[in-house]
């Protein structure tokens, strides 16, 4: 059966994950058994340089980095197309090279565009 190999690989990774989880959970349980807990005091308060915590961190704010996530998303899809190309690279010599050139060219265009738009510059807030 052709899927036998897949199944075996699947089980191998699943088992590995399982053993890994055991390795991680045992210390957690062990620790929870022997740790001395002291209640009271303000130890459960969120750390803020020793001052009283002011408000929650879950507020609305501009994540300046989201633009990177955006470029990453578009770029990542293209990068992943490059992997299959690389895998069969050389099957049709000239065509493959041209294809890779076009592909990388389009990718570079994206970078050049973002570069010119100043996406990679750090903006100082006034």
């Amino acid at each position, binding site marked *: 059966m*052709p899927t036998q190999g897949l*199944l075996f690989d699947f089980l191998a990774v699943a088992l590995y994950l399982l053993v890994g989880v055991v390795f991680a959970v045992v210390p957690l349980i062990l620790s929870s058994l022997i740790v001395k807990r002291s209640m009271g005091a303000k130890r459960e308060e969120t750390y803020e340089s020793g001052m009283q915590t002011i408000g929650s961190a879950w507020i609305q704010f*501009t994540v300046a980095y989201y633009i990177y996530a955006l470029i990453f998303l*578009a770029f990542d899809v293209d990068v992943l197309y490059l992997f299959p190309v690389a895998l069969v690279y050389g099957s049709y010599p000239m065509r493959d090279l041209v294809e890779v050139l*076009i592909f990388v060219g389009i990718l570079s265009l994206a970078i050049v565009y973002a570069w010119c738009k100043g996406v990679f510059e750090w903006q100082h807030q006034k």
Partner: protein
Amino acid sequence: MTLYTALFYLLGALIVASTGVAVTRRNLVHAVVYLILSFFGTSLLFYLLGAPLLAALWVIIYAGAIMVLFLFIIMMTRADAQAGPLFPPGQWIPAAVLGLLYLVVGSLMVLAVPETGAELRPAVAAPRNFALHLFETHWLSVEIVSVLLLVALMGALYLGRRRETDVSGEEP
């Protein structure tokens, strides 16, 4: 029931359950986490059905890239849950109608094909075969997709820049 079938139904249940939980969360970050779990399950299903390359791409793009973007965007919108019903009628009625329609059409289409009920022959698309197929028959669409992505990126950047000047927030 073989191990294979058992795994199939197990993963199917995982996907349906985690997607259901994701849809009903008020906390959007939790919803994202459950959605990641659902994508992960889908990827494992792809793998078991003989499409390892697709499984890897699925995790990398959906769980790895799209959800990170979602996480960032959620942090930029109001995080606290809004009061009121989880699903206002304006949302769930169209969703239910469309869902029902899809269910009916989908099952009709499945039932209309004579092969329904026949056992699916196990097959494996090795990464090399997949790649060869992609570049022998679909090379043009791949190039078009990459141009499309470029255009999408430019549009997103354009909109993003404009938005940034509107919202004066502190930097992280």
